[in-house]
C-alpha cells in the first residue's frame, strides 16, 4: 500500500506546476533552492565560529540557545503564512478500499518531509557536527539535536491545528513584538529564560521528554482529528464563510469607477491570496530598517533611494503585478460585459495610490533616521504614485498568470509569474528610482536628487491619459491570449 501511495505522490510531484514551468523558471528555482539551502548549510558550518567571535566570553551553544526562542516563533509565523494543510488530497482516497488510518498516517508522515522541516535541518545538522568536532560530548549534542528536531516536528503539526483560526496568528505576532520590545528596552529578557530550557536539552538529556512528548502529542492530536473527520463534510470540506457585509457607499464619489472599486475592495478583504499580499506589503514598511541602520549605505544614497521606493511601494508592487490576474477567475464575464478598461484600471490605480499614501504616513517613524531619509521616502512615494504604478500595471498586463483567489500562495509560487518580460519590466522599477536620483545627485547635490525623483512622479500625473491608453491597447491586443491563459487549469 505504501508503495502505491508513494507512487501517487511521485506523480503529483513530477506533474506539479513547478515541473510544467518553463526551463528558465526551473533553473531559477533550482538556483533559489541551492541559494537558500547553501546559506543554511554555510550558516550551520560557520555558525559556531561566528557566535564565538560575536559573543566571545559565552559558549557558542549557549549563545545560540538564547536565540532559539525567536527562531521557534518565526518558524511558526512563516509556516502559518506559507505551509499548506495537505487535506484536500484525501477525497479521492475515501471510497477506495484502503484502511483510513493508513491514509491518515501516510498524510501525516508526508508532511514531516516538508520543505519547512528540511530547511532548518540544513542548519542544525552541520552545526551539530561542528560541535562534535570541536570536542563537545557527542551524546549531549545528539540529545540537543533530537530536541531541536522534535521542536521542528512540533511546529509542523502545530501549524495544521493553528491554521484553522486566526486568533493564534495574532497571539504569535503579538508575543513576538512584545518580547522584542521588552528585550530592546531592557525590561524583560525572555531569551535568558528560554535559553535555560534549550540549554537543558544539551546538559540534561532527560528534558528531551518535553519536546518529544509535545511533538508526539500533537502528531496524535492531528491523527485523531483527521480520523474523526474523515468524511467529506469533515476535514475535507471547505468551510462556508460568514458573509461580512460592507458598507461601501462612500466609494460612490468615484463615479463611474465606483462599481469596480467596490468589487476590488471586497475582493481584497474576502479572499485568502490578496489578504496575504496585504499583510506582506505591511512588512515592506520595515524594509528601510535594513538599509537605514547601516553606515555603509549612508555613503550610497542611490541604494537608499531604492530602499525608500520599497518602503512605500510594497502593496503597489505585489498587488499591481497581478492586475488583471486578480480577476482571472471570472475574466470571461468581464470580457463579455460592457466594461470600460479605463474605469477598470483606474480602480486598481486608486487602490495602489491609496496604499502608497497610507504607507507614507505609516513610515513617519523613519524621521528618527533624520529628515533626509524621510525626504527620500516622500520622493520615493511620489515616484511610486506617478511612474511605478503605470509600469507595474503594464507589467501585470503581460503577466497572464491565473490566480486562485481563495487559496494561499505556496512557497515559490511567486516564481510562476516569472518570465523574461517580467524581468525586463522589473528593471525600470528597481533601477529607475536609483538612476533618477543618482544623476542629479552626482552632478548637483542630494536635494537636487530628491527634487528630481519627486518630480518624476509628476510625469505620471501629466501623462496619465497617455499611459492609460498604452495599457488599454495592450489589454485589447492580447484579449484572446489572456482569456485562454486564465482559462487554463491551475
Amino acid at each position, binding site marked *: 500500500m505504501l508503495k502505491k501511495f508513494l507512487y501517487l505522490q511521485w506523480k503529483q510531484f513530477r506533474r506539479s506546476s513547478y515541473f510544467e514551468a518553463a526551463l528558465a523558471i526551473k533553473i531559477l528555482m533550482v538556483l533559489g533552492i541551492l541559494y537558500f539551502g547553501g546559506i543554511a548549510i554555510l550558516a550551520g558550518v560557520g555558525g559556531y565560529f561566528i557566535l564565538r567571535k560575536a559573543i566571545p566570553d559565552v559558549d557558542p551553544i549557549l549563545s545560540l540557545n538564547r536565540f532559539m526562542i525567536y527562531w521557534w516563533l518565526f518558524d511558526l509565523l512563516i509556516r502559518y503564512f506559507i505551509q499548506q494543510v495537505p487535506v484536500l488530497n484525501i477525497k479521492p482516497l475515501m471510497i477506495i478500499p484502503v484502511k483510513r488510518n493508513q491514509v491518515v498516517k501516510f498524510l501525516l508522515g508526508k508532511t514531516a518531509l516538508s520543505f519547512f522541516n528540511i530547511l532548518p535541518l540544513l542548519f542544525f545538522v552541520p552545526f551539530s557536527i561542528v560541535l562534535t568536532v570541536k570536542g563537545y560530548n557527542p551524546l549531549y549534542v545528539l540529545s540537543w539535536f533530537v530536541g531541536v528536531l522534535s521542536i521542528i516536528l512540533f511546529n509542523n503539526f502545530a501549524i495544521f491545528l493553528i491554521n484553522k483560526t486566526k486568533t493564534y496568528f495574532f497571539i504569535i505576532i503579538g508575543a513576538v513584538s512584545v518580547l522584542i520590545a521588552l528585550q530592546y528596552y531592557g525590561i524583560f529578557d525572555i531569551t535568558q529564560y528560554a535559553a535555560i530550557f534549550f540549554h537543558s536539552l544539551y546538559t540534561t538529556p532527560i528534558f528531551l521528554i518535553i519536546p518529544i512528548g509535545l511533538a508526539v502529542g500533537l502528531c496524535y492530536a492531528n491523527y485523531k482529528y483527521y480520523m474523526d473527520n474523515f468524511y467529506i463534510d469533515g476535514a475535507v470540506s471547505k468551510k462556508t464563510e460568514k458573509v461580512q457585509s460592507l458598507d461601501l457607499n462612500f466609494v460612490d464619489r468615484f463615479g463611474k469607477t465606483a462599481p469596480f472599486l467596490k468589487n476590488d475592495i471586497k475582493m481584497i478583504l474576502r479572499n485568502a491570496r490578496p489578504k496575504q499580499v496585504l499583510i506582506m506589503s505591511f512588512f515592506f514598511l520595515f524594509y528601510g530598517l535594513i538599509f537605514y541602520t547601516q553606515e555603509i549605505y549612508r555613503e550610497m544614497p542611490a541604494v537608499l533611494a531604492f530602499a525608500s521606493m520599497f518602503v512605500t511601494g510594497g502593496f503597489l508592487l505585489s498587488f499591481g503585478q497581478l492586475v488583471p490576474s486578480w480577476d482571472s477567475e471570472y475574466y*470571461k*464575464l468581464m470580457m463579455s460585459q460592457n466594461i470600460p478598461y479605463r474605469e477598470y484600471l483606474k480602480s486598481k490605480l486608486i487602490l495602489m495610490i491609496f496604499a502608497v499614501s497610507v504607507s507614507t504616513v505609516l513610515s513617519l517613524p523613519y524621521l528618527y533616521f533624520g529628515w533626509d531619509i524621510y525626504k527620500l521616502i516622500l520622493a520615493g512615494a511620489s515616484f511610486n504614485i506617478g511612474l511605478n504604478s503605470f509600469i507595474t500595471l503594464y507589467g501585470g498586463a503581460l503577466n497572464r498568470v491565473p490566480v486562485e483567489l481563495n487559496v494561499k500562495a505556496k512557497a515559490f509560487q511567486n516564481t510562476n509569474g516569472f518570465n523574461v518580460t517580467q524581468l525586463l519590466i522589473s528593471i525600470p522599477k528597481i533601477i529607475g528610482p536609483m538612476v533618477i536620483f543618482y544623476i542629479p545627485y552626482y552632478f548637483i547635490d542630494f536635494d537636487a536628487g530628491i527634487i528630481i525623483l519627486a518630480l518624476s512622479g509628476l510625469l505620471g500625473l501629466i501623462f496619465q491619459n497617455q499611459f492609460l491608453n498604452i495599457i488599454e491597447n495592450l489589454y485589447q491586443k492580447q484579449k*484572446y491570449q489572456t482569456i485562454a491563459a486564465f482559462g487554463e487549469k491551475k
Partner: protein
Amino acid sequence: MISISNISKSYNSVEVLNVENIEIPKGQNFGLVGNNGAGKTTLFSLLLDLIKPTTGEITSGEIVVSKSEDWKPFTSAFIDESFLIGYLTPEEYFYFIGELRGVSKPDVDEMLAEFEDFFHGEILSQKKYLRDLSKGNQKKVGIVAALIGTPEVIILDEPFANLDPTTQIRLKKIISDLTQQKQTTVLISSHDLMHVTDVCKRIVVLEKGKVVKDIATTQETLKELEEYFSQ
C-alpha cells in the same frame, strides 16, 4: 439579428468547428444540440468574442463581434461558473451586473422580485458567497443575472444541467416568455432533447463541428432527434 458566416475554429490545425451559414432572426428561440465535443461551447464563445475565429465572422445586430465591442451593451450570457464572481453574495453580484448594464439598484430589486419562485428561497438574503452555493443555485444566479437590463441577445450554455425538475420547468417558462413578449433572441444549448424541443422554435444539431440538421420545431422533432442520436 445574428448572422454566422463561414466561421471556423482550429486548434493546432485540428478543426473543431466549421459552420457555413446560420441566420438567426430577431426574437427567435434558438436551440443548439450535439454530443460532447460537437462544438456548442466553441460556437457560443465565438459569439461572445472570447476566442478568435480562424476564418469567417459573426455579425450581431449589424456589428462584427470580433471587430467592435458595441455588441456588448445588448448581449448577455451565462456560459459557466467563470461568469460568476465567487466572493460576492448573489445580491451584490446582481447589483454589480446592474451597474455595468446601467440598471439601478431599485430596478434590479424589482426584477429579482419577479424571480422569487425561480429562486425558491435559496438565493436571496442567504448570507452566503456565490462560491459557497451549490452548483444548481449558482446556475440560477448566473441565468437571472444574464437577464438583467433587458438584453436583446441572451446566450445560455446548458441552462438545464444541474437544475432540479421544478426549476427546469420554471426556466422553460421564463425562456418562452422572453421570446414571446420582448422580442429577445435567446440561444441555448442542451443535452436534454425534451426540454430543448419544448422551448426552442428552431433546433440546430452539431456534430464534430458541422451543422448536420437545422429543424423548425414541430410535433415530430423530438422523435426525429431521438432517432438521430440513437444511431
